C-alpha cells in the first residue's frame, strides 16, 4: 500500500506538539533513526516526547509513518517502533488526546497496515517477549479489537498471553508493501547538527517582524539624513559638501547595504535559533557566529514571563523570559515565538513544582 509520510521540509512540522503539549519537531530524531534505527539513546529521547503516560500529541501521529518507513528500509519491525506505534494508536482513542489531522490521516492508517504485515512476516524470528506482544497488539488493533490490544500491551503476566497468542498467529502471510523511496530525504539526514535534534524552530513570522524592525531602523537613519540634507539645501550658504555626489552616493550605498543585510540576516538568525523542552527542562540554541546552547533545568526556573512589544503584537509573536537564580543567566530570553507557543511554554515551565523556599 502506498503512503507518504510528511516531508521533512513541510512547515506543518513546526505546528505539531509533543505528548507534553508543547511544540516538538521530531524530524531530527527521525533522521538519526534512519541512519541507525537501533540507537537506544535516540529512542530514549524520542519516545518520552511522543508518548507520556497515556498522553500523545499531534507530532506522535506524524512520526508513526516515518517509523514504519524506517522499518521497511531496514526490513525489520524494530521493537521500539512497533511498541510506539501501538501505544500511540491506543492513546489516540482517548478523547483527551488530540484528533488525527486530515493531512496525516491517510499516511497514518496506511502505515499501520504496512507495519502490521511487515511485523507478522518477521514474527517467527522474533524472540523478545515484549516485541512479540507489541506485534500481537498491533494485529489486534488492525482487527479493530482495541481491548484485546490493551490487554496485550498492559497485562502484567506476560508469558501466558504471549504463549497463547503465539499459537494463534503461527501462519502469517508474508510480503512487504510498496513504498515510495525518496533518496533526497535520506541525503539530507546528515545536514542537521546533532545538538539541534528534536528542536523546534521559531515562528516564521519572526523573520518578517525582524525585517520590519530593521526597515524602521534604516528608515529612521535615512530620514534623519534626508532632513539634514534638506536643511543644508535650504539654509546653508554652501550646501555642496552635504549634497556632493560622494556624500549622496555614500548614503545611498549605506542604506542599500543595510537594506540587503536586513533582508538576508533575519532568516540566518531564524535558522540558528531553536529550542526544545527536554526531560531536564528548557534548552535554547542560538547565535550565528558565537553559538550557545543553554540548558535551564526545570527545577531552576524561578518564574517565567511572556512579553510582547508593539511589533510582536502586530505579528502575533511573543518573547519568553525565564528567570533563574543564576548570575549571568538570571534571565534567559527566547525571542520570536508565536505568542500562544510562548504562553504554552510558560505554563509548561512553571507548572511542575512551586517551591516556596528562597
Amino acid at each position, binding site marked *: 500500500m502506498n503512503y507518504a509520510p510528511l516531508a521533512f521540509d513541510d512547515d506543518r512540522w513546526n505546528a505539531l506538539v509533543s505528548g507534553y503539549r508543547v511544540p516538538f519537531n521530531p524530524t531530527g530524531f527521525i533522521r538519526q533513526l534512519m541512519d541507525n534505527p537501533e540507537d537506544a539513546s535516540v529512542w530514549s529521547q524520542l519516545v518520552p516526547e511522543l508518548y507520556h503516560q497515556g498522553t500523545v500529541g499531534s507530532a506522535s501521529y506524524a512520526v508513526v509513518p516515518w517509523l514504519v518507513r524506517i522499518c521497511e528500509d531496514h526490513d525489520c519491525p524494530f521493537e521500539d517502533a512497533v511498541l510506539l506505534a501501538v501505544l500511540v494508536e491506543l492513546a489516540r482513542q482517548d478523547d483527551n488526546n488530540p484528533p488525527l489531522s486530515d493531512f496525516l490521516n491517510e499516511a497514518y492508517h496506511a502505515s499501520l497496515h504496512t507495519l502490521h504485515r511487515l511485523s507478522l512476516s518477521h514474527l517467527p524470528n522474533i524472540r523478545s517477549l515484549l516485541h512479540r506482544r507489541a506485534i500481537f497488539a498491533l494485529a489486534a488493533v488492525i482487527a479493530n479489537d482495541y481491548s484485546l490490544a490493551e490487554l496485550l500491551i498492559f497485562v502484567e503476566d506476560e508469558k501466558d498471553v504471549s504463549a497463547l497468542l503465539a499459537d494463534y498467529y503461527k501462519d502469517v502471510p508474508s510480503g512487504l508493501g510498496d513504498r515510495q523511496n525518496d533518496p533526497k530525504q535520506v541525503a539530507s539526514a546528515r545536514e542537521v547538527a*546533532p*545538538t539541534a535534534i528534536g528542536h523546534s524552530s521559531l515562528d516564521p513570522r519572526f523573520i518578517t517582524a525582524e525585517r520590519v524592525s530593521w526597515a524602521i531602523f534604516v528608515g529612521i537613519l535615512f530620514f534623519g539624513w534626508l532632513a539634514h540634507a534638506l536643511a543644508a539645501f535650504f539654509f546653508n550658504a554652501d550646501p555642496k559638501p552635504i549634497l556632493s555626489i560622494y556624500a549622496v552616493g555614500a548614503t545611498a550605498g549605506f542604506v542599500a547595504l543595510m537594506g540587503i543585510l536586513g533582508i538576508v540576516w533575519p532568516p540566518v538568525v531564524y535558522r540558528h535559533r531553536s529550542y526544545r523542552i527536554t*526531560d*531536564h*527542562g528548557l534548552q535554547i540554541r542560538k*547565535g550565528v*557566529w*558565537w*553559538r*550557545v*546552547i*543553554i*540548558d*535551564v*533545568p*526545570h*527545577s*531552576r526556573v524561578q518564574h517565567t514571563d511572556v512579553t510582547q512589544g508593539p511589533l510582536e503584537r502586530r505579528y502575533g509573536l511573543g518573547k519568553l523570559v525565564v528567570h*533563574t*537564580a*543564576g*548570575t*549571568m*543567566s538570571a534571565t*534567559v530570553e527566547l525571542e520570536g515565538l508565536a505568542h500562544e507557543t510562548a504562553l504554552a511554554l510558560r505554563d509548561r515551565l512553571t507548572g511542575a*513544582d512551586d*517551591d516556596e*523556599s*528562597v
Partner: protein
Amino acid sequence: MNPFEPLPMGDDEAFLRLHPSSLLFALARTLRAFLLPGIIVLVRGGENFEVWLMLLAIPAFLLALFRYITFRFRLAEREMIVRKGLIFRSERIIPYGRIQNLDYKRNLFHRLFGVCDMLVQTASGKEPEATLSVLRLKDAEAVRDQVARRKAALTDQAVALDAPPADETDRLTDAAGITESAPQEAAEERLAHASIKELALFGLITNRGWLAVAALVGLAFQFDLWPDADLFEAWADRAFGVSNFDARGKIIASVVGLIAVVLIVRVLSVFWSILTLYDFSLLQHGGELRTRFGLLTQHALTLPKHRIQLIDIESSPTSRLFKRVTLRARTAGALSDENQGTSRDWLMPVFRRGDVPELLHDVQPELENEPTDWQSISPRGARRMMKQLVLLDLAFVTPLAFALSHWWWLALPPALGLSWLIARWVVRAHGYALTANVLWFRHGLLAKKTRVIRYNKIQTVTIGESPFDRRNGHASLRIDTANSGMGQFAVTIPYLPRDEAERLRRALTDEAERRDFVW
C-alpha cells in the same frame, strides 16, 4: 497569635528599642564624617562657605537623633519587623525564612560600651536589609539565636518543640532588655582556628601592608605633607653620613631603600593581619557556620551551610611555599565585597593544605574527597592560546623596534619562547572532575584556584562555540550559579573537545535537574 493579622501601627510596647548608647554612636558617626574635612578647613584656613558648610553637622546629628528615637524592632512569630521614621513612618517586615545572615560588628568603642552593630541580610542585594545600631552584645546574640530558632521552627512545621508561649517570646522586653532565651539546642562547635603564628604567616604571605602604605600616601596627599626630594636627601645625610650621593651611592641607597620599604611593608602586613584577624575562628552552630575575628574591631559573620553556592580553595606561589591555602565560601545574596582587606567570604584566610579535606567534610558533609582523576582540557588549546600570545608579543615589540631601535627584534625569540611555555602551562593547569555530588574545577598558573560546586547549586549549563572553537573542534562549557560574581560564570571550562563538552553538558544538566535547588 494570628500571623496574618496586621499589627496596629500604634502598638509600641511589643517593640524593642535600640540601646541608649546608640545616641552616642550616632553622634560619633556624625562627628567622624565631619572630622577630616573639619581639620582640613581648620589647618588650611578654608573659605568662608567651607566653614559654614561645617554647620551641616547639626542637622545631620538631629537626623541621627530622630532615627534613634523612632527606631523600633520586633521579633514576631514569623518575621522580624523594623519600624522607623517620625513623620514618614516605614515598617519593614522581614520574614525569618528570607534572612540569610545576621552579622555583627564591633569596633573598639562598641566594645568599651559592650554593644555592637547588627546587620540583617537577605538575598535581595547589596545593602543590608536592616541595620540595628547599636545593641548590647548579649541582646544581639539573643536576637540571633531567637531568629535561628524560629526559622528552624518554621521549617519543620511540627513546631511546638520547646518554644516558649508566643506571648512571652514576642515581648522579649523586660527591665533588663532581652530575656535570656531558652537554652540552645545546638552548641557552637569550633571547626578551625587561626593562631597568632598562622596569622603572622598570613600577613607575610598576603602582603597587605600595601593597604597601610596606600592609606598613608593618601593621607600625605590630603595634607600636602608629601616630602620633597631635598628633605629626603637631608634625612639620608643625617642617617648615613653621606652628603652628596655619587652614582654608585645612589644605586646602593635606592636598593637599601627598596629592601627597607619591602621589609617595612611586610612587617606592617603582619601587624595588620594579627590586628584585624585576631582569633579567627570558624564555628558551627546547627546548620550555620559562623566566623569571628578581630582584635579592635570584632566581626561575627554567619554563613548558612545550605546557602553556600561555591567553595574556593586558593593558593598563591608564596602560600604554596608554606603549604597554606585560603578557603572561601560564597553564599547566595550575601555581600561578598572586600572590606579593608578582610572578606566576608572567608571560611579560613589561612589554612594548612593537608587539613583541607577534613574541614571541607565538616563544612559540607556531602562533599567527597578531592578527586584524583582530574580531566584535562584539549592540549590543542595551548596552540590556540599561543596564537593569541604571538599577536600580543608582536603588538609590543613592533612599535618598539620601529620607534627606538631594530635591536628590539632580538627580544622577540625569548618572548615567543616564554609565551609558548606559558600557553602550555596555563592550559595544563586547567582541570575538572565530576564526583557524586560535586563538580571540581581548577585553573591558574601562579594564583591557583580550585572551585567546588555542588550539583544542586548549578543554575544553568551553557555550551559556547566561537568561530575559532569550531575550527578546532572545541567548545567551552559555562556553568552559572547564584552569586558567581559580576559578569562571570561560576565556571568556564575552555578548549574542551566538542563531544566531551556535549557529554559534560548532559551529565551536569541531568545532575542539576535531579536535585532541587534551595537558594
